[in-house]
């Protein structure tokens, strides 16, 4: 039943032949029942596998873990937030922390805190604790974990795709953080109450934009150019108005 040309027939069925080789192999099929049957069988089996076999897709948790691990690798080996802390004496640090708790931060120091927190989450994780692009999943996740309900909206069509959220802290205040993806960048949106500071700043290549709306404080942070972050903030603010 097998023909000496069966290897060429396999190559033809798998699309490995072109031009004159393919034409010759096809011509052979016309006169050889064994090869014609073999060809049809290979194609039918391939079609059956493509149509019927499981094709798994990476679950969101795996995608999030991979992105986090890669982001951590790509960040500076020695994070500036570690470097900053290591150069300061323990007592000076304690004094600074005490002051920070007592005084509401200015927009500048707020930008530092937000950038630190963002980089820390990227490097050490967790960046995302609830991974979903569905606001019906992300918003309820915060209920009972924090005493505020952040506005959750996906802006995928505008280039900022909701990835999920996490709990974090800003100056010791609990914050709800919504995580978005913008091209190759991760955008964090911090929502909390306590700072009452507004402004924009760039810290170590991270753009930070903060504002106050109603009784909530907002800060968006990203390593994309500030103009792109502004675009994101417009989307978020448009949503609240």
């Amino acid at each position, binding site marked *: 039943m097998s023909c000496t040309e069966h290897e060429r027939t396999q190559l033809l069925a798998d699309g490995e032949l072109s031009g004159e080789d393919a034409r010759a192999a096809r011509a052979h099929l016309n006169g050889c029942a064994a090869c014609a049957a073999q060809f049809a069988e290979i194609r039918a089996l391939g079609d*059956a*596998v493509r149509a019927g076999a499981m094709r*798994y897709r*990476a679950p969101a948790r795996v995608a999030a873990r*991979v992105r986090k691990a890669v982001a951590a690798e790509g960040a500076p080996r020695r994070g500036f937030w570690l470097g900053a802390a290591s150069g300061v004496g323990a007592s000076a640090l304690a004094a600074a922390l005490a002051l920070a708790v007592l005084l509401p931060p200015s927009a500048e120091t707020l930008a530092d805190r937000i950038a630190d927190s963002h980089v820390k989450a990227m490097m050490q994780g967790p960046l995302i604790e609830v991974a979903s692009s569905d606001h019906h999943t992300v918003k309820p996740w915060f209920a009972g974990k924090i005493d505020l309900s952040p506005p959750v909206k996906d802006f995928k069509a505008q280039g900022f795709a909701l990835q999920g959220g996490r709990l974090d802290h800003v100056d010791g205040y609990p914050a709800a953080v919504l995580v978005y993806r913008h091209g190759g960048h991760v955008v964090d949106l911090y929502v909390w109450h306590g700072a009452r500071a507004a402004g924009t700043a760039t810290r170590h290549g991270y753009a930070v934009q903060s504002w106050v709306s109603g009784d909530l404080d907002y800060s968006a942070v990203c390593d994309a150019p500030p103009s792109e972050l502004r675009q994101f903030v417009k989307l978020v603010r448009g949503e609240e108005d």
Partner: protein
Amino acid sequence: MDERRRRFEAQALPHLDAAYNLARWLAPAHADDIVQDAMLRAFRSFDGFRGADARPWLFAIVRNCARDHAGRARGRAQVPLPGEEDGAALPDPAPGPEQQAAGASERRRLDAAIAALPEEFRTVLILRELEELSYREIALALDVPVGTVMSRLSRARAMLKDGWMTP
């Protein structure tokens, strides 16, 4: 963000699903860890990657990671039987309602028959029929000669036909 990460996110990360699919077919219980290891390894060695399509290169790393995992987990023998766990499967092209009942059990049998193939045959079959790689790309991914790809594929098909067609 540095240039390597940008390139990696553009060229390698889009194939995360394909990498996961291969890992699931190689080691269903450890696919999460294998893929995470593999993508991190890929990122670390991404400077060495030159080419248009990162898939063969990624598949080679996934396979190495799967082998490392199997080495670590030796003794805990397991027969892979995909389809029962929580991994998200791409829905198949929607079949007509009348085909659905018969289709589901038929697909399960097909999955079981593929899962029952020895690893080296299962891998070539997945790479050729699901990922539609060329012989050359499969040879790159498996680090074997093209002739070996050809003979393994032929053997894999014969085994699958036997396992699937025989009730």
